[in-house]
Structures are given as C-alpha cells and as structure tokens.
C-alpha cells in the first residue's frame, strides 16, 4: 500500500511524470550532489530521453533541477532562458548508445575552477528517480528518504564504526547497501535513515578512520 499522495500526485509541471517531473528531480539531485549551480554542464541523454526530450520538455526540466527548482515550479517552462541569465552554460548530447534503462541521463558538471563531477541517474516513472553513479562509483539513491553516502576504504571495521555513530545518536537505519569500486579499493556505503542526520553527526562520521568523504541527501 502506498500513501494516497503517491497515487494522486505528484503535483508537477507537465507533460510527463517520467520525462518532466522525473527529469526535474534528477537535475535537482545533481544540483545537490554538486552543492550548487555548475557554471557548465554537459547532459548526455540515453534511450527514450534522447529521442523525445524536446517534446516532453525534458531539457527544460533537467536545467530547472540543476538551477535548484522543484518539479512543481512553474519556472521549468522558461528554465533554458533562466540558465542563460544565471550563466549556466549547457549542452545536450543525444547518445545513440543502448543502456539498460530507457530514461537515463549523465551530468558532467564543472565550476569555473577545476572541479568536475559526473552524476548518472534514471527516471523510473511516476516522478520517481534513482541516482546510479557519482564520479564513476555505482550507488542507488532515490531521494525518498534521508540518505548518507559515505566514501570509504574497503577494509574490515569501517562500516561498523560509521553505523555506530548513528546508533549512538539513536538514528535508525532504514536501509543500507555497500558498493565497491574495484580499481582504487574504494567502497561506498549508501545509508538511508528514518530521521535527519545533523551536521555534528556528519562531522563525527567523517572523522571515523577509513572514511574519505561523505555526502548527505535530503528527501526530495
């Protein structure tokens, strides 16, 4: 059983929950991961996204999300103009590659310095989304729950140190998965929690031996 507001909802800018609302949420997620509006972004579209993005306003919705707008923000309709006004340089690339899902987008985001991040995500339908890769590391983030992503060394004991910090602060783990990136012996923990993890706790987790970096995601 879902909440009734998943059934009659989301409130969104049309025309398509997967190609417009989902696209806006993917852009917003990329915006959160980049921690702001990039100065340049290359958006590579795959599958149905690549074929139908103009007619569905997928391009505008993705740009709106990157600017930090929600899926029900009327500014989606003019997001391409707003991107230009806010000096967010963008380029859409239609990939002919077949990927394992029909609605996939890859964001290559740059700032005016040397920072470059890559985020890959997919639109699952009904406005639901999933981020599947950040900087080449596989993961699964949906934006449905508060999520902590911990980049860490792949060795025994790190996971228990991190989860202990949460447990001691009485934060319940709703779900957890560990993904490995083979080449650097890095691993990523994706932990969804029943409540928000505050900045102090995030710092404590960051201090755990073996933890390289950490990101948090609010519910979208």
């Amino acid at each position, binding site marked *: 059983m*879902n909440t009734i507001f998943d*059934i009659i909802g989301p409130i*969104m800018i*049309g025309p398509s929950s997967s190609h417009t*609302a989902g696209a806006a949420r993917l852009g917003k997620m990329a915006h959160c991961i980049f921690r702001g509006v990039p100065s340049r972004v290359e958006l590579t579209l795959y599958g149905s996204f690549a074929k139908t993005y103009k007619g569905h*306003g997928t391009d505008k919705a993705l740009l709106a999300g990157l600017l930090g707008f929600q899926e029900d923000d009327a500014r*989606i309709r003019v997001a391409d103009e707003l991107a230009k006004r806010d000096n967010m340089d963008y380029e859409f690339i239609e990939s002919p590659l077949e990927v394992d899902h029909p609605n996939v987008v890859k964001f290559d985001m740059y700032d005016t310095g040397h920072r470059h991040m890559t985020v890959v995500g997919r639109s699952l339908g009904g406005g639901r989304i999933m981020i599947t890769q950040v900087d080449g590391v596989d993961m699964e983030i949906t934006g449905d729950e508060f999520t902590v992503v911990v980049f860490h060394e792949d060795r025994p004991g790190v996971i228990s140190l991190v989860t202990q910090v949460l447990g001691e602060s009485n934060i319940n783990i709703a779900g957890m998965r560990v993904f490995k990136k083979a080449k650097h012996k890095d691993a990523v923990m994706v932990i969804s929690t029943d409540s928000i993890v505050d900045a102090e706790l995030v710092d404590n987790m960051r201090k755990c031996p073996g933890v390289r970096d950490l990101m948090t995601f609010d519910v979208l």
Partner: protein
Amino acid sequence: MSYSYETIEDIIRLAEEHSISFSDVVLQAELENYENDVETVMAAIDTRLQVFEKSIQAGLLNTGKTPSEMSGGQGAQLLAQGQPRFMSDLMYKSMTYAIAVNEANAKMFKVVACPTAGSCGVMPGCVKAVGEHYNLSHDDYVRGFLTGAGIGNVVTNRACVAGAVGGCQAEVGTASAMAAGAIVEMMGGTPRQVGNALAICMKNLLGLVCDPVAGLVEVPCIKRNGVYTAHALTAAEMAMAGIESQIPPDEVIETMNIVGRAMPAALRETSDGGLAKTLTGEKIAKRVRSL
C-alpha cells in the same frame, strides 16, 4: 483494529463491517500507515483539489498550441460551443474539463498526476462536473478524492499504472475506474456500488493500447481523457442503478494487468506501433524531431 487494505474487496469488507464509507476506510488506512494527523491529510488533499481546479482553468484560458502544434484550445472550443447535441450537460462538462487539464499538461502548466500525467484529466473532469452539477459540498469532493486514490492504490500495487508496462488501459483506464468509483461515492453510493462502478468501467476498456504520436503526451492522450470521462459516467450510472459486475473488481484489475503484460511492446508507449506508426503519425514525428 487495522484498516489497511490490499484489495478492493478489503476496502468494501472493512467499510461494511464498520458501517462506514469506502472513502472512510481509505482515510483511516492512510492515517494508520503514514502516521499523519487528519489535518495534514486534509490539507494535502485540499492542495491537490486546488491544483485540479487551476489546471482546468489553465487549459481553458490558454488557447495556444503546443510546440508540436498538434493540440491546444480544444477544451476552450467545447466550452464556447456550450450546447451539447448528444450528451447530458454534466457529461459535456466532464469531457470539456478533462480535455482542458490534459491540454494544460501538454503545455507545461501545473497538474496533479492522477494516477499519471498522461491521464491527469479524467478524475478532475468527472469530480468537478458532478460536484458542480449537484452543488455538492467540499466534503463530498474530499470523499471523491479519497475513493479515487484508494482504487488507484490497489491498481498500482496489484497491477500497473504505467503505459510502458500495461498500455493505456493501465493509465487512462485506471484513471477512468478511479473516477467512476469517486463519483459514485460523491453521490452517496454504497461501497459495493463503488466496486461495481470501477469493475464495469475497467472491464470495458481492457486492451486499450498506448501509442502516442511522436512519443508525446498529446495524441491520442488529450482527447482520450475527455472520451473516458463519458466512460466513467456510464459505468457509474449503471452501478448507481444497482447493476452489478459479474466479474468482481479485483479480478478485473488482475485481468487488466495480465492483458497489459501480454501486449506487444510496440503498443506500450514505445511509439513503435498503433497511431504513432500511421503515415500521418510518422510525418508529425519527423517534424517534432526537427524542432
């Protein structure tokens, strides 16, 4: 005591056991499972009912064409014509409103997916037309909303509501079944009549394919939302007259799912078949690609 439901029969049984309405069960289950208080749920319903209304107005007032030039302004055209030749006033209004909402959707105005964006017109069209025609109260709109949501919830969890999975019968079909049940509830029908309305409605749209021209949510989606308000009203009329569906609602929903999954991929939102592959459909697709 739990009000949680998996099936339409669960909702009807719980309603009958407690002598409450179909929508009461849906509300109680929502409160129980999502730890919300009544005020929060009512406020969220109100917000959505307001977007229903605003999307109808947006569609009627903005008569421009979509970028594909396939649609726009037909809701307003119907409203201006005003005089139905074949339909009742209520039915004509439902159709007009539903088309307006889907035109608003195609032109990137704010809508509520119901259950999807492509099928977002049927529920608002039927609910508003019935509410206006019979001068119903705000509470009646809320009961209609809850009933539609409960039906959609069962279909979502036991079948599918995505055109890519089950064809248009899963999208506009579900929307139509939700609307049929909703208006029976608004008019004071019994929980069992709600079940019969949605079953009769869904039985008669099995096999409806999803074949959007150029992959856009326009043709045949917009007019189809209008057409299926009439379908919902027809099913609701029969149910309120005491006519029962020989096949129970849950079995109809299960059948919709089986039929949907048996459909060839070309007819499930890929635009590789049906109207999308007609001579004209292909021509339009070519034009849209070059926009």
